[in-house]
């Protein structure tokens, strides 16, 4: 780091505030809001739908827009969670626990207003953490060799697929399936086309866009059609006048918001957890530390502030490992990484020095975007509520069309549309077998990098596996992997017992 901190901020602001980037940042957060509000379209599906557009933009602008969709959807997701009890995104599920009772009690407007504030505070604290820590981590990571990277990736993949609480075997199986899909295409050392089965299009590699669109977009449509009914909402309860919180609301809220932001910032950086887990943890902490836990689940304002602050700060800090190490902690981050790779930029410690304008421009655009969301959210609540009532019948043909044309535009390839069909079918089959899709996408993106590091590490160590324990960082990652595995096994066992107990009752 040769430049001072202030210089970096100025550089970032000058990029984020350029007319062009402001426009795309606005587009990103607006789309994110819309997508977050409408139930039945996930963030992943929408980012992959808009992924093709980013090929027309320069990498900084592309990332600014994709990131805007990502954190914008968390803002919007709370609206559906509070008013309809349907979380717009998984990370808003916890918000519905107390937000929906608030709406039922005629305090929906207050809840929406307060979550907007919580989201803004959480997002801002997350950005602050990111600005401070990424430059500290990056120079350290510059010394990482292949053995270290491989072990870190193993840890990231194992943690991401096991900690979520589902079946450990299924999560790991899907990681491996993703890695297998990643091996399709030319071998990086010899150029041998692997698993191309005579398809010329497969000698390159499977298109990330086609995979993400099929697996997350199409299969989501298949599972959602005829399932979502537009709800009835009391429009009066969300008018501007009904939004004013009481003094009691403020007094109860500020500490949970700060605590939630802290918890979110921490869990956002970990490879496994991300915003959904962060929101859940924040809620649990508030409920446990409350002097009056009985109020939770019945419309306690703390119960919406803490998780909303947490998921928004986690949205921001999730970028730390992605940008400084090149290891994405969640499928969304994997898509961000994919967007960078497509533009020929390899995320990692060198990113901060070589593309410092990209990094600082992106970080500063987060502030701008969060501010835009604050301004967008409150006066336009009426519009968001109307959007909520849009029936899915009208939406899903549009989703399918955007997915098909969008995929086609990436490589002007009809073959990629057929791939979408194949992955859409696969994604649906995975739903039936209850196999998680997120680990598969992570494995697919990391697969080629992982194989490369594995082979290089083995080459350097002359085939000695001890290289993975000799370096302290690699050894720590391996130990953490074992811990994550044990934790995953334990928690899935516990979840299963609870479910069995619930069934018997």
């Amino acid at each position, binding site marked *: 780091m040769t430049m001072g901190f202030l210089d970096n901020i100025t550089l970032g602001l000058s990029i984020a505030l350029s007319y062009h980037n402001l426009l795309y940042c606005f587009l990103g957060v607006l789309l994110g809001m819309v997508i977050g509000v409408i139930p039945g379209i996930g963030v992943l599906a929408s980012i992959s739908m808009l992924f093709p557009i980013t090929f027309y933009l320069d990498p900084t602008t592309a990332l600014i827009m994709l990131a805007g969709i990502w954190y914008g959807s968390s803002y919007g997701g709370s609206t559906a969670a509070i008013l309809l009890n349907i979380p717009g995104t998984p990370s808003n599920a916890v918000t519905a626990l107390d937000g929906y009772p608030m709406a039922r009690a005629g305090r929906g407007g207050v809840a929406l207003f307060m979550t907007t504030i919580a989201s803004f505070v959480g997002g801002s604290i997350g950005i602050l953490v990111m600005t401070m820590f990424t430059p500290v981590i990056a120079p350290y990571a510059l010394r990482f060799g292949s053995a270290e990277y491989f072990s870190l990736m193993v840890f990231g993949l194992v943690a991401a697929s096991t900690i979520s609480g589902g079946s450990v075997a299924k999560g790991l*199986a899907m990681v491996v399936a993703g890695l297998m899909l990643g091996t399709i295409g030319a071998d990086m050392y010899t150029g041998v086309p692997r698993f191309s089965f005579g398809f010329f299009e497969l000698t390159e590699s499977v298109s990330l866009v086609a995979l993400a669109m099929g697996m997350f977009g199409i299969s989501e449509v298949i599972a959602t059609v005829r399932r979502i009914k537009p709800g009835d909402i009391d429009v009066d309860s969300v008018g501007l006048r009904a939004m004013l919180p009481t003094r009691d609301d403020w007094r109860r809220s500020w500490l949970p918001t700060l605590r939630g932001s802290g918890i979110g910032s921490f869990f956002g950086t970990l490879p496994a957890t991300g915003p959904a887990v962060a929101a859940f943890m924040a809620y649990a902490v508030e409920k446990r530390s409350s002097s009056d836990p009985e109020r939770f689940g019945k419309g306690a304002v703390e119960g919406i502030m803490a998780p909303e602050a947490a998921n928004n700060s986690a949205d921001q800090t999730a970028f730390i490992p992605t940008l400084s190490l090149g290891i994405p902690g969640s499928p969304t981050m994997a898509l961000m990484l994919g967007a960078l790779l497509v533009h020929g930029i390899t995320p990692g410690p060198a990113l901060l020095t070589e593309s410092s304008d990209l990094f600082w421009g992106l970080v500063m655009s987060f502030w701008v975007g969060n501010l835009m969301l604050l301004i967008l959210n409150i006066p336009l609540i009426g519009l968001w509520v109307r959007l909520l009532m849009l029936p899915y*019948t009208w939406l899903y043909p549009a989703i399918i069309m955007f997915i098909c044309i969008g995929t086609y535009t990436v490589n002007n390839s009809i073959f990629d549309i057929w791939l979408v069909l194949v992955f859409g079918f696969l994604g649906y089959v995975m739903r039936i077998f209850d196999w998680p899709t997120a680990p598969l996408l992570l494995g697919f993106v990391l697969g080629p990098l992982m194989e490369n590091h594995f082979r290089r590490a*083995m080459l350097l160590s002359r085939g000695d596996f001890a290289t993975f324990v000799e370096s302290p960082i690699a050894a720590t990652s391996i130990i953490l992997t074992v811990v994550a595995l044990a934790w995953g096994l334990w928690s899935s066992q516990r979840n299963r017992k609870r479910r069995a107990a619930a069934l018997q009752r």
Partner: protein
Amino acid sequence: MYSKDYTDIVGGLVLICLGLVFSAYAATHYDIGTIRRMGPGMFPTILGVALAIFGAAQIVPALRRAGNKPDIRVWTPIFVLGACGVFALMLRSCGLIPAVITLTVVASLAELEIRPLRMAAISAILCLASWLIFVVAFGLNVPIARWPF
């Protein structure tokens, strides 16, 4: 309810088969190399075996517990995937507008009811949107409408 969790058992078997076939294909078609100097076949072969192991790990606990009948939809996937398929077939030969209209009609059938008016309205909106966004704004080079024969 099933007496055993057959969904997971079948799923595990599928994983085992997939893994072993993948491994065998990689091992027979590509050079394995040595641990020190790996060929293109090594990593895929390891992965296939790993998938089979995790598949087996999924079966073991499923043998000892009861399971639910999976909820499988038949017609919805056919219409949704069919919409993608007809679009892939028609985009270049018939042009964008006919492809979008056919896509919308096939996709709408996934509702399992036919509402001609709504279908027409959605088609019209999507034709306009796709033309404006992809052809006018992004300059996508596809025929708008043409006779394929």
